């Protein structure tokens, strides 16, 4: 059994009992709460996609461990084609659910772990890769939904992890035992962890000697005692609860906005078989960087392009509903939306095509760093532009509309139908406006900005990855300028650490 169906996943979720808190309530069953249900339904759609024969190339891969077909979310990329299909999966899943593929972070985390555990075993003679492969084979066999937890709460940014007043702001070791370790701390902004069978936990960033207690990577079961999830709660959560029985009132009726939680680890036991980094600070940064490398191609370059596709579709329909779809400046704005979107997709494809084995000999392929960062940085800015144009073309109605069911009110309904009837009936216009409200006034703008790392991290990577001296040399050559006449002499390039 290497692939389970959507129905089987939903049956699994009925049995899982994570300790979940949302908006003042403890959730006993994820499918009973309208907000947590939207997250589970989105994850279930990812299983459904893998069942469809037309999606097989994108959604299903061959396990390098067993040769069995596995969901691509559990696949380690072994070549350029795998990388390309991985970014195509990010596109397809976003186009389908209009929210997170909640298995996405786990997928990129496991690729980072595959590369880095191999490297540690080579360098240090450890057995992490063997351990990790056993866990991966188990996850693949059961087609587990795996989320990823990277971001620590961090506390005071001026202080290192071990200097914080409360050490829990970085997930850390509490006890080393013969059979495993005990950990505590927080991981924040964890997309879809509640509805996953397991979560892969990585360090939140690079660490230094002396910070071994924070250098931890492991797989944790969803409902292990000591682990709690405190879900995000916002206007959209309240709206979904209010319209639990009237989903037509919602912008994305089935799959919702984007659900995250803070994971609270209160002395959670992790057996050694699930531990993939234990104190090796030198490898913490590499683990995170490799995760980011994969995630910027997928989350940045492809996933948000899928969102852009549905926003562009909705925006065009909004224009058609009032009869302005042929107006030149409307068309120009739509074309700009496509330009922002497809440029990012092109960067993602380039990141996949220029991907390479890392580390050499590991068999693990990771995307090109520069193009992946370009994809993410481009969409971080482009997505706001796309939302701006959607709000522009969608009109003030996007934020001033009444409820859809007000159209059925015997007193105000007939008036509203006259007010909002245009080239399309009022019902159609309001439905489209609600869809655009969901995007333009929702959580995805800031989510896209910060997801896979805020743009400042990509800018930093650009400075690291770009050979500026080489560019200056090319310019000097064309100018006919000698190096000694340059305003600043070239510094010898530092050897990579």
């Amino acid at each position, binding site marked *: 059994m290497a692939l389970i169906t959507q129905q089987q996943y939903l049956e699994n979720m009925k049995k899982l*009992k994570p300790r979940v808190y949302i908006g003042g309530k403890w959730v006993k069953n994820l499918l009973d709460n309208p907000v947590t249900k939207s997250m589970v339904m989105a994850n279930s759609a990812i299983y459904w996609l893998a069942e469809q024969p037309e999606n097989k190339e994108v959604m299903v891969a061959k396990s390098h461990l067993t040769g069995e077909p596995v969901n691509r979310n559990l696949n380690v990329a072994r070549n350029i084609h795998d990388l390309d299909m991985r970014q195509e999966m990010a596109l397809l899943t976003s186009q389908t659910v209009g929210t997170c593929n909640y298995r996405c972070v786990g997928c990129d985390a496991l690729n980072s772990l595959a590369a880095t555990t191999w490297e540690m075993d080579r360098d240090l003679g450890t057995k992490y890769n063997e351990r990790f492969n056993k866990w991966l084979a188990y996850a693949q066999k059961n087609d587990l939904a795996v989320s990823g937890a990277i971001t620590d709460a961090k506390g005071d940014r001026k202080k290192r992890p071990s200097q914080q007043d409360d050490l829990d702001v970085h997930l850390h070791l509490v006890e080393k035992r013969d059979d495993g370790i005990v950990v505590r701390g927080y991981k924040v902004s964890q997309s879809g962890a509640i509805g996953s069978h397991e979560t892969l936990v990585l360090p939140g960033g690079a660490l230094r000697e002396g910070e071994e207690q924070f250098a931890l990577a492991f797989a944790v079961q969803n409902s292990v*005692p000591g682990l709690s999830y405190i879900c995000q709660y916002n206007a959209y959560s309240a709206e979904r609860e209010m319209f639990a029985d009237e989903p037509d009132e919602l912008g994305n009726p089935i799959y919702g906005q984007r659900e995250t939680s803070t994971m609270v680890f209160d002395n959670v036991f992790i057996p050694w078989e699930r531990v993939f980094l234990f104190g090796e600070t030198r490898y913490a940064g590499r683990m995170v960087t490799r995760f980011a490398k994969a995630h910027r191609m997928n989350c940045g370059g492809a996933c948000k392009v899928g969102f852009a596709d549905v926003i562009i579709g909705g925006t065009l329909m909004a224009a058609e509903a009032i009869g302005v779809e042929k107006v030149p400046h409307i068309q120009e704005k739509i074309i700009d939306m496509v330009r922002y979107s497809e440029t990012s997709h092109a960067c993602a494809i380039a990141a996949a095509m220029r991907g390479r084995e890392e580390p050499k000999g590991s068999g693990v392929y990771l995307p090109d760093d520069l193009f992946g960062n370009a994809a993410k940085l481009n969409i971080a800015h482009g997505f706001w532009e796309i939302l701006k144009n959607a709000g522009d073309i969608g009109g003030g109605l996007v934020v001033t509309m009444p409820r859809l069911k007000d159209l059925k009110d015997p007193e105000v309904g007939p008036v509203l139908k006259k007010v909002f009837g245009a080239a399309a009936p009022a019902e159609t216009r309001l439905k489209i406006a609600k869809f655009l409200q969901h995007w333009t006034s929702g959580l995805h703008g800031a989510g896209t900005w910060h997801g896979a790392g805020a743009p400042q991290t990509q800018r930093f990577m650009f400075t690291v990855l770009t050979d500026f001296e080489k560019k200056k040399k090319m310019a000097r050559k064309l100018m006919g300028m000698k190096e000694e006449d340059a305003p600043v002499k070239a510094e010898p390039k530092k050897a990579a650490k």
Partner: protein
Amino acid sequence: METIEVQIGKNHRGTYIGLGGTFASMSYCCLSKKALPGFHEKGIIKRAEMKDGKLLRLVLTGKHKQDKLMAMMEIALPNIGAYPDTGGKAAFFIEVKSEK
């Protein structure tokens, strides 16, 4: 992978398979945290003890029929990452009783 057999009375048996370390996880939860995976109410475990590192003996609070105890373990095991399996020689055992 490791196989865990749940034993309730003479007639109720359940076999579960999970990643290595699953029994250690289950044991830590029951012995150190006094918690049963998938159940969040406090005081659910009346008594827990380990024998020979392979047998976990649990006494659950309240009076439950064996069917009910089995149903509880059918929730607990998947919540710690062990899934029902039909065969295989068990390396670890969990004996479950109800409080008398």
